[in-house]
């Protein structure tokens, strides 16, 4: 496989946590490569290290050992500012529990990443474009009528779609989803998966973590994580 085709590469990832007196080894040498435009499911039992792997891939956490390369650049060598820019521009996160800000309405939650990346003046100059992009995303996600609502006024599926909208706001190169259907009923979960399929068809690279193999089947490639290693 030509290295140039990979958007994200992980090599020899190790990660452990202190749990009381014990040292729990979560990742024990994970190698992973993601091609641009791929839809990958990482499957594993609870505690197998799926979420930890996803957090490390998205630079929300650092590995104890090993490297993660994004378009050939080693994330370990990124400074804080570069990491912040990476999280803001290059990746979009979708979490199991949506993680929307309760104080903001749906539209504001969606354009939050665009606002966070700009100074006050920069935002004032570009807010119209950002709002239009957020409205467009909400329209694609079937939430146009909900733009002014607060997260607590939405159903679980709607909240997850808002979270997807937020993740896509800055047109990230890769979408990382941590159990995106884990908190939804199967019908709503299927709706979310359809959104992912549509996004992937449009060229979006997606890495999804799930414990449900049926959901994982929707992805183009399935990676099994067992006992901290890729099986």
């Amino acid at each position: 496989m030509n290295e140039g085709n990979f958007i994200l590469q992980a090599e020899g990832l190790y990660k452990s946590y202190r749990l009381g007196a014990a040292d729990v080894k979560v990742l024990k040498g994970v190698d992973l490569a993601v091609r641009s435009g791929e839809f990958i499911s990482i499957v594993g039992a609870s505690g197998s290290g799926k979420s930890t792997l996803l957090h490390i891939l998205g630079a929300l956490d650092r590995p104890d050992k090993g490297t993660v390369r994004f378009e050939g650049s080693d994330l370990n060598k990124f400074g804080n500012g570069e990491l912040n820019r990476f999280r803001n521009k290059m990746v979009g996160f979708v979490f199991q529990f949506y993680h929307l800000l309760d104080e903001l309405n749906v539209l504001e939650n969606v354009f939050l990443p665009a606002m966070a990346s700009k100074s006050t003046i920069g935002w004032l100059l570009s807010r119209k474009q950002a709002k239009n992009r957020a409205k467009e995303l909400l329209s694609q996600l079937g939430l146009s009528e909900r733009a002014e609502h607060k997260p607590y006024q939405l159903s679980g599926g709607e909240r997850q779609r808002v979270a997807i909208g937020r993740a896509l706001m800055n047109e990230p190169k890769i979408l990382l989803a941590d159990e995106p259907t884990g908190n939804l009923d199967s019908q709503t979960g299927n709706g979310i998966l359809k959104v992912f399929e549509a996004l992937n068809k449009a060229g979006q690279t997606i890495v999804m973590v799930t414990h449900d193999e049926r959901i994982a089947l929707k992805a183009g490639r399935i990676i099994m994580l067992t006992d901290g290693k890729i099986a």
Partner: protein
Amino acid sequence: MYKVILAIRYLLKRRISYLAFLAVALCVFIVVVVMTVMTGVLGDFKEKNHAFTGDCVVGTESLVGFAYYEDFIKILEQADFVYAVSPVIKSYALVSPKQNSRNVGLELIGIDPARHIRATGFGDTLYYHQNDPAKAFCPEYDPNSIGFIIGIDRWIARNAEGRYDYESVARNEELIVSCIPLNAKGALSKAGTDVVNTKSFYFSDTSHSGLAKVDYWTIYLPFEQAQMLCGMDGQDKRINAIHVKFKQDEKVNAGCEKVSILWQNFVRENSGREKANLLQNVTVQSWKSYRRTFIAAMEKEQVMMIAVFMMVGIITVFIVLVVFYMIIGHKSKDIGILKSIGVSNGNIIQLFSGFAFLIGISGSAAGAFCGWLFLLKINSIEEWLFRHFGFQLWDRTIYAIGEIPHRIEPEVLALIVLAAIAACLAGAIIPSWQAARLKPVDSLRVNQL
């Protein structure tokens, strides 16, 4: 921009923010009210002391006084920075009404009203001679008799509202004033059974200086009469003090310096004269220094009050600190979300500092507004409380305070508001810093929710 939006929303939508807002508002309210009243009382007290004294006093504490004052008064009157001077006799007198033998020892002040009203605010303290203070010692009922002026509290009792019920016309009353005359060496001027000088005076007016001690323990007599009673007349006449008022553009301390130099030269030039030794006891003091025993006590009270309110400020910082710990504890998920979309640690600190700033500025604005409103109505409130419940902040029959001071000093207000904002920022800095250090994965973990 999101920092401003989130800070405002945190303030408006989190009930716990109201607690911090209320704590700040309450502290600012209390500090504004107490500081205004205290500053007002002190300012008023200083003003009254200033008016009573003039700008500068050349004087001695010795009852013997000093001689050659007329020569020095001439020098002062020629000085371009001096507006007015007034020679003053200060001693003690035994005073008793003609009708009965009850007597009381009072401080005697001998003045020439025409000069004294120019050098001090004495003219404004009179009641019956407001329009012609120069004739203050001429009783209305008999302008030819020699009058006395007495401290208001010695003459009329105040009513419950703190007002004096003056009679429409000064009543004809005679007081017998006795003094022990001293010679220039400090010995009794007279020997045998006739050691005391005694003379009758007639009530002419009251003096209301607003200074409790002065208004209760002072009797004013015409200058020459007081000089005679104290044995300071004769060949080298003596006085106890010269009160000086400077021209308007002259600063008090600078003026006092100039008077001091003039006095030193005067002492040098007169060192060969017979009673030159008396000049050595004379000091030149500003009104503030002259009345320092009274003013210093109140200033000390104010300093103590400021110290107490600094402790209140520390409590505010602590309340804000606790509230912020609680808010940030509740908001750890938001911090994780913000970090997952690329918000930096510095911006997290700015967000929560902005939130603290908003609490500080809104709380202190509300506190300052309520304080201003309360002070605006403080006298009406006190009057209402007195009418309905008999409550008074100060018993007006005892304290020489007319109305409660309520004029807010803009500098004091600005200082209080700035201190409140600074206290909020200080209270928020540690929790904000801790929030910024939170790892996104830690705050976004399911078991953190």
